[in-house]
C-alpha cells in the first residue's frame, strides 16, 4: 500500500492535481483552454529543456510576459526545474528590466515577442543572461538567437527530480522601496506553501471554484490566484488586465466565475459603470480586496453587483504575502477594519522601540509566522531593518512599517504608512524612483515627488520640478520621459513647474510643506 507523501514544494500541487483530474480545465486565457494534463505536461517539458540547458538548482529565471498560458507554464516549469522564478511586469521599461536582470543575475529570460523593444537591449546590457526563450510571433526576431517557446518543450518524462527542499528559494518578487531601486523579496517553498494553505482556508475555496485573474502575475496578489487554483484543481480564467471591462464581464458569465479578486481602482470603475448601466454577476460568491482600503461607501453598490458574494477586505505586503483578513460576515459591523491575522499566523502592535503598545493605541504592526520572506535579495542591511529578532532564538519578526490599532476583539485598523511610499491604483510607488527618472529630463535642476489624496486612485502622484536657470521646460517634456521610462501607474498625474522648493532648517527639501 502506497502512503501519500506530504506535499512540500509549490510545483507538486500542479502534478498532483493533474494526476487526480487530468482532463479538468485548468486554465483559460484569451479563449484558449488548457487541461491539467496539458499544463503539467508542458511545464514538465519546459523544465526538462531548462535543465538540459544547464539551469541549476537556485538559478534565477526572469519571466517577462503578460498573463498568458505561456507565462503560467513558465512559472511552474522554473519551479519544477529547481530554479527561482522572477515575474516582471510587462509594462516595465528597459532600464528597470536591465537592473532586475543584473541584480538577480538571471540565467534565463522567458518573454514574449511583442516586448522585444524592451528586452533585446536589456539582455544586451545584462552580464548573466545566457538564453532567451520567447513566445508569440518571432518574425521580427530572426537571427537574434532567441529560442521559440514551442521549441523549448521537451517530452515531459525527460524532466529530472531537482532535489529541491522546502528551505530552497522558489521566487523573487520585486517590490518598490524607499531606496529608489526595486528589491527582490525572497520566498522559499516553505513560506509559499504555508501561506497558500492559509489563503485557501480562510477564503473557503474548493476544487469547484472558477477564479478570475486580471491582476498582473508579477504582483503576488495575481500570482497566488494561479497558485490557489492549481493547488486545488480548480479552474483559472486569465485576462491581461481590466482594460476592456466588457471582455471581463463576458468571461465571468461564460465560465460562471465564482472568485473575483480586485483592487479599489477596479471596484471604483465597476461602481461608476454600474451607475450608468446596472451590472449583476450572480455566479460570484467570493469578492476580495487588498493593496489599498476599499471605501465603506462602495459596499452597497458592490452588494448589488455581486448579490451572492462574501466580500473579503484584506491587508498584506509582499514581504509575507498576506497579513490579515476580515471575516466577510463582519463587513458592515467593522467598516474600517482589515480583520485578524490569517490562519496559522500572529500579529502584534509595537512602538518604535519595539515595546507592545496599550490596547487601542497606535503602533507599528509586526507579523509572526512561516509566511515571512527570507529577506531582500542581496540586501542584508535593508533586510535586517525589516526582519528583526523575535522572542525565540533564530526567529524573525516582520516589521511592516505601517501604523495600526487593534480593537478589543483583536481586529486591525490601518492608520497610515511610516515611510513615504505612495500607494496609487493599489500599486506601491517609490517617490525616489520617480524623482530619479525626472532628474534625467533635460533642463531639470531639482525635483520632489509626493502623494496626494485622490478619489479614484487612492493616492495620485504629484511632481514639483525646478528648471535649470533660463531653461524653457514644459510639463509635456517631463511627462513624456516618465511615460518612456516608468510603468503607467508610476507616471505622475500632476506635474508643476515651480521656481523653488521649500526647505527645512538643515537645507533638505521639505516634502511636508509641499502637500
Amino acid at each position: 500500500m502506497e502512503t501519500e507523501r506530504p506535499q512540500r514544494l509549490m510545483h507538486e500541487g500542479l502534478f498532483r492535481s493533474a494526476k487526480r483530474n487530468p482532463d479538468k480545465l485548468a486554465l483559460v486565457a484569451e479563449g484558449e483552454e488548457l487541461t491539467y494534463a496539458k499544463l503539467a505536461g508542458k511545464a514538465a517539458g519546459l523544465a526538462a529543456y531548462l535543465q538540459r540547458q544547464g539551469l541549476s538548482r537556485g538559478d534565477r529565471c526572469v519571466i517577462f510576459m503578460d498573463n498568458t498560458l505561456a507565462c503560467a507554464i513558465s512559472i511552474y516549469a522554473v519551479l519544477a526545474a529547481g530554479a527561482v522564478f522572477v515575474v516582471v511586469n510587462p509594462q516595465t521599461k528597459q532600464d528597470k528590466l536591465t537592473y532586475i536582470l543584473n541584480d538577480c543575475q538571471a540565467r534565463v529570460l522567458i518573454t514574449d515577442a511583442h516586448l522585444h523593444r524592451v528586452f533585446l537591449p536589456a539582455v544586451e546590457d545584462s552580464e548573466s543572461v545566457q538564453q532567451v526563450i520567447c513566445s508569440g510571433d518571432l518574425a521580427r526576431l530572426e537571427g537574434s538567437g532567441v529560442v521559440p517557446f514551442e521549441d523549448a518543450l521537451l517530452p515531459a518524462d525527460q524532466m529530472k527530480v531537482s532535489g529541491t527542499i522546502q528551505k530552497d528559494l522558489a521566487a523573487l518578487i520585486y517590490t518598490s522601496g524607499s531606496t529608489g531601486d526595486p528589491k527582490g523579496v525572497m520566498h522559499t517553498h516553505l513560506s509559499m506553501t504555508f501561506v497558500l494553505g492559509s489563503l485557501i482556508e480562510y477564503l473557503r475555496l474548493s476544487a469547484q471554484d472558477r477564479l478570475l485573474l486580471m491582476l498582473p502575475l508579477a504582483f503576488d496578489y495575481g500570482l497566488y490566484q494561479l497558485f490557489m487554483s492549481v493547488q486545488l484543481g480548480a479552474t483559472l480564467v486569465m485576462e491581461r488586465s481590466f482594460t476592456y471591462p466588457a471582455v471581463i464581464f463576458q468571461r465571468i458569465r461564460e465560465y460562471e466565475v465564482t472568485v473575483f479578486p480586485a483592487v479599489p481602482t477596479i471596484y471604483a470603475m465597476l461602481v461608476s459603470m454600474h451607475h450608468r448601466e446596472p451590472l449583476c454577476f450572480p455566479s460570484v460568491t467570493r469578492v476580495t480586496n487588498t493593496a489599498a482600503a476599499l471605501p465603506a461607501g462602495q459596499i452597497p453598490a458592490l452588494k448589488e453587483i455581486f448579490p451572492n458574494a462574501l466580500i473579503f477586505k484584506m491587508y498584506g505586503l509582499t514581504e509575507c504575502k498576506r497579513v490579515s483578513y476580515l471575516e466577510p460576515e463582519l463587513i458592515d459591523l467593522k467598516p474600517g477594519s482589515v480583520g485578524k491575522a490569517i490562519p496559522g499566523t500572529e500579529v502584534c502592535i509595537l512602538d518604535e522601540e519595539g515595546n507592545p503598545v496599550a490596547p487601542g493605541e497606535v503602533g507599528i504592526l509586526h507579523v509572526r509566522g512561516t509566511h515571512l520572506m527570507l529577506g531582500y535579495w542581496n540586501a542584508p542591511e535593508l533586510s535586517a531593518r525589516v526582519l528583526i529578532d523575535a522572542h525565540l532564538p533564530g526567529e524573525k519578526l516582520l516589521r511592516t512599517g505601517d501604523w495600526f490599532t487593534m480593537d478589543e476583539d483583536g481586529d486591525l485598523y490601518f492608520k497610515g504608512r511610516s515611510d513615504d511610499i505612495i500607494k496609487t491604483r493599489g500599486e506601491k510607488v517609490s517617490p525616489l524612483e520617480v524623482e530619479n527618472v525626472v532628474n534625467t529630463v533635460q533642463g531639470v535642476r531639482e525635483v520632489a515627488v509626493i502623494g496626494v489624496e485622490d478619489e479614484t486612485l487612492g493616492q495620485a502622484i504629484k511632481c514639483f520640478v525646478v528648471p535649470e536657470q533660463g531653461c524653457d521646460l514644459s510639463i509635456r517634456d517631463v511627462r513624456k520621459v516618465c511615460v518612456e521610462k516608468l510603468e503607467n501607474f508610476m507616471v505622475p498625474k500632476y506635474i508643476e513647474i515651480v521656481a523653488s522648493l521649500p526647505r527645512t532648517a538643515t537645507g533638505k527639501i521639505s516634502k511636508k510643506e509641499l502637500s
Partner: protein
Amino acid sequence: MSSEDKIRKFILENYLFTDDQSELNNDDSFLDQGILDSTGILEIIFFIEDEFGIKIKDDEMVPENLDSVNRIVAFIERKQQE
C-alpha cells in the same frame, strides 16, 4: 478635422505626450504597445462620446472596437449610422 485626425491627436497628446505623428501607427494595439491601461480606457470612452455624440454601451467596450486608431474610427462610423 477627420475622425481619424481627432482620435490620433487625442491619443498622441494624452498618452504619448508628443506631436510627432510617427510615434503612433493607426494599427498599433493600445494593449500590446502599453499605450493604454484600465484607467485610460474610460477617458477615451468619455472623449469619444463627447466629441462624436454617441453613447457607448458596456458590452461595446471591447478590443475589437477600441484597441487601435483604425478600430475606433470604424466603430464610430458604425455607431453614427445607427
